[in-house]
């Protein structure tokens, strides 16, 4: 399964209604790991993470900040201690994440390029 992802890479997608065409890597990092959850158009961003043990999730963070899922978890664990900054919303399944993006303006998630549909707008691409 990771082989498919390896072949096609991972893309960051938003609702096509959003007037944002592309995001920088820093934009993506800030949206998924930081406290600034705002799109360049000024819309509140709602990052949606894949389930904990989803292979694409691990691949996404690896490609994005070079960290393992454990490290990411540890990161959030420290922020959770203060209670002010919360980690992205975690979907139960990958399909739930896509549906959330399709369903709401401002939601943003990631998926394998192969699983891309026309109702999604790619704003950033992660590849090997």
């Amino acid at each position, binding site marked *: 399964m990771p082989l498919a992802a390896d072949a096609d890479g991972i893309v960051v997608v938003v609702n096509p209604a959003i007037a944002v065409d592309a995001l920088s890597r820093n934009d993506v*990092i800030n949206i998924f*790991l*930081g*406290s600034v959850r705002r799109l360049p158009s000024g819309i509140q961003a709602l990052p949606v993470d894949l389930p904990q043990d989803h292979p694409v999730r691990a691949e996404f963070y690896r490609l*994005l*900040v*070079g*960290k393992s899922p454990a490290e990411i978890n540890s*990161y959030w664990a*420290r*922020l959770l*201690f*203060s*209670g*002010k*900054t919360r980690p992205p919303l975690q979907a139960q399944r990958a399909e739930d994440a896509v549906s959330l993006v399709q369903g709401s303006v401002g939601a943003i998630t990631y998926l394998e390029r192969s699983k891309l549909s026309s109702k999604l707008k790619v704003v950033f691409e992660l590849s090997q």
Partner: protein
Amino acid sequence: MQAFWRQSILFRAAMQIIGIAMVVGFGFVFLTASLTEQYTQQSVSQRIRELMTTVERTVQIACFARDQALAQEVVTGLATNSEVLGATIVGGGEVLAEHRSAVAGEERVRRARAGRVSRPIVSPFDSSQIVGEITIDPDPEIVRARVRENGGFVALLLGLQLLVVVAAVAAVVLLLIVRPIKRMSDILHVMDARSIKPLAVPYGHDGTEIGRLVADINQLGQRLVASLDEERDLHVQCEIGERKYRAIFENADSGIFVIDRGMALQSCNNAFYRQLDLPRHGERDEKLNLRDLRWRAPAALGQLVNRCDVLNRPVSEDLEYLASDRESRWFSVTLTPVGNQLIQGLLTDISRHKLAELSAQQEAITDALTGLLNRAGFLQQLEQETVLPAGDEVAGFALLIVDLDGFRRVNEAMGLASGDQILSITAARLRSCLKSSDIISRLGNDSFGIILHSAATEVAANGVAMRIVSALKGYFEVGSPPLQLGASVGITLFPNDGSDPEALLRNAELALDHARLIGPGRFCLFDVTMAKNAEHRRKLENDLRFAVRRDELKIGLQPIADLSLRRMVGAEALIRWDHPQAGLIAPDMFIPMAEETGAIATIGLWMVEAVCQQLAAWKKQGVDYYLSINVSARQIPDGMPPITLIETVNRYGVDPAKLAIEITESVFMGNSEAAQIWLDAVHELGFRIYLDDFGTGFSSLSYIKRFPVDVLKIDKSFVRDMGEDNNDRALVGAIINMAGSLGLDVVAEGVESRQQLELLARAGCQCVQGFYISRPVAADEIEGVAARIPQLL
């Protein structure tokens, strides 16, 4: 006691050690503090950096997420560290969290800010992206507290150490140095210098400085004891010496005294009073001054004291002292400077020496036999008399020399004792002729000198001389029969004839010579011609010395004729002196002179030479004459050695028999033994011996028997009077007969007339000589004379 403590070695050592330790300690504490400060600062910084590293990851997250709660949490955590005074976390341009100490003052905060440590914080996802900064202010009080704590500890440690060291040193010094020294010091302190006991070396101190010190002290002590002993001995000896010398001083025969430079008497012994005949006033006679005593010349004593004082060495002088009983004493005064301006003197009575000396002086100028002045005394007197006084008044005097005629003969004939008697009588008679103011002396053997003060004129002196001559004409009652001698007197006048003793004596001698010349028992006054004659004579004597060398001597020949052969058989060689200025000088004028000066030897040998030359000439001509030469007693034996005679005749090839030696009887009278040997030798060599002037002297047959005489020459005095005097005629006849019987030939001298010749011929005389035959002629005239002689006979 307190002062003593301050000065004790222990106290001083402790104080010095404390002082040094404190200086060093402060240094150490200071050093420790500064090192501690540095170290603490470093360790605090290190600690801060470690703290930062510890919280870094969390801060990264907090900064990245701009999570103030997390940041606050971290800051609060940091603030719990004691080193941290304040901390700040800045993220995304805003302060996320900050902690400030609530209790720290402004100053502390300000100093903390100076040590602030900051570190930039990168994003946890991108190490190249700086997302914030963490700043920590370290608490300066920490450093200070640490420094204080460490410094205090070190100071405490050093203080303890110091205490221990001082205690240890004090103990060591006390035990090792102070106590032994104190013990020694205590012993020495109470020790009596007269009974020094050696100190014991403190335990364990053999060979240490203290041990050596003790040894040195003991040695010093021994030396001190030795010196004290020595000094005591010396003192004892001094005392003994002092007592001894005191005894010597007191009992000395010589006066010993000490005076100061003013001659005031300081001390003296008994002999001093005794010698100077001073009464002893008391033990200390301080008022006595040497100057006031009865010295004949007090000034001389003063000068002596001065000399001693100036030269600063012993001086001595003989001084005369007038003793109380008017008698004079002589003292040898020796002064020795003894320092302290004092002079020690020694007074030795030398009166006896002085008297002896005076009498010796007297003796030296006195003739022992007659008690008159001797020659030296007379000369001394004359010296005094002839010093012309400064004034124009000159006291003249006459100087007489009186000589006994024929005294030598009497002395020889009768012995010295008789001679001495005669001299004593003569002295007495002379004295009776003179006044007491006149001075009489014995100049020599039988010669007396007289200074006539009473008769300074010619007439007066002649009168006295006449009295003397007549007084000495009288018989001398010496032996039997009584003797009759005469006296000759020479007179000279002072100051007319001479002004110095020498000239006066010479003049008087000359006058005396003249008096003797004109006959015995005469007196003669000096006149200038005598001096001139004497001068002339002296000149001749001088010239005579060179006469042989200058070829001024000639021989004259007086023929001797044989009456039976009726011809000349030989001649007597007579010497002549052809003086370049004075002309011909007769032998009887210069031969005595030559005998006196010793020139006779040279002249005699020249004569032999000249005679041999003549004989050789005759031999060559075939003439058979002989020649005779006169040899005086003075020439025998050394003036004319026999060996020289024979050598000379041999050299000329002359027969010694042709050379006759004429001697007079005086030859026998001197050293007859030497004369005998000489005559025997000469006779043995073949020379003939003629006895000249026979009959005038002590003609003794024993001489003719004893000595090898060949021919007698009868003296002309007999021949002269033969014509008138029968006695002489008989005497001549007797001589001729006696000679004939003894086998001697006879030559009659002084034949002046035909009558004499005939008388002699009748008496049996063989040979004659005299003016009748011929006067002495030069050698080259002899031939002519010889030819005429036969007609005279």
